């Protein structure tokens, strides 16, 4: 299995430079929203229109993305598969990058972006799923690892609400 230390900001800068439309979900979204979660991969949900797939492909080429293949094969991303709803788990020069067609209850980019916050990271505007929506997608996923994160996410949301009052 290939290893590479994650460089979250650098990955986001490459995606931003190629003007990829995406929203950050998962652990990095939790951290950006103020929830102290440990993670090593960057999870994004991308817009799946043809133009964005081309921009995403260009970014993935720059990042030297290949699938995290247990058999050690070098499998490169393909535009056709990135247009689908599946999950693409890549290793890149900036660490693990999970490119997800849909998450939760079959929610794609267009469904999630309404619950996105725009933050400036490394000089680029990036969309990040907000905490209520992140909690909803984790609840919908229902896997043990998603359930394990819920107490921290819910408490972070409560603390965030206190700060706003």
């Amino acid at each position, binding site marked *: 299995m290939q290893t590479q230390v994650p460089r*979250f900001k650098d990955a986001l800068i490459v995606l931003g430079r190629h003007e990829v439309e995406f929203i950050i979900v998962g652990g990095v979204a939790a951290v950006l929203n103020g929830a102290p979660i440990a993670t090593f991969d960057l999870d994004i949900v991308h817009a799946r229109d043809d133009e964005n797939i081309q921009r995403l492909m260009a970014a993935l080429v720059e990042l030297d993305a290949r699938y995290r293949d247990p058999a050690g094969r070098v499998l490169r991303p393909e535009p056709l598969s990135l247009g689908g709803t599946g999950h693409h788990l890549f290793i890149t020069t900036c660490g693990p990058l999970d490119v997800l067609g849909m998450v939760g209850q079959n929610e794609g980019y267009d469904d999630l972006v309404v619950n996105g916050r725009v933050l400036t990271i*490394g000089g680029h505007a990036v969309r990040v799923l907000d905490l209520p929506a992140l909690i909803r997608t984790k609840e919908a996923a229902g896997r043990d690892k998603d359930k394990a994160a819920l107490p921290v996410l819910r408490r972070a949301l409560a603390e965030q609400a206190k700060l706003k009052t």
Partner: protein
Amino acid sequence: MLPRLDSPGADTTDDDGVDVTLIRWTLSLDPEARLDALQGFADSIAALTDADPSP
């Protein structure tokens, strides 16, 4: 023997065991600083792994 005292931080976790002080600290940072903290964590783990290559 010295009297046993509760830690002054005994009430820092909620009923689920979540460390509220850690959340408040994270929320005190701006988003980019939060990402930097996560990056620091990942770098530290990588440095430890490099120091001890056992699986």
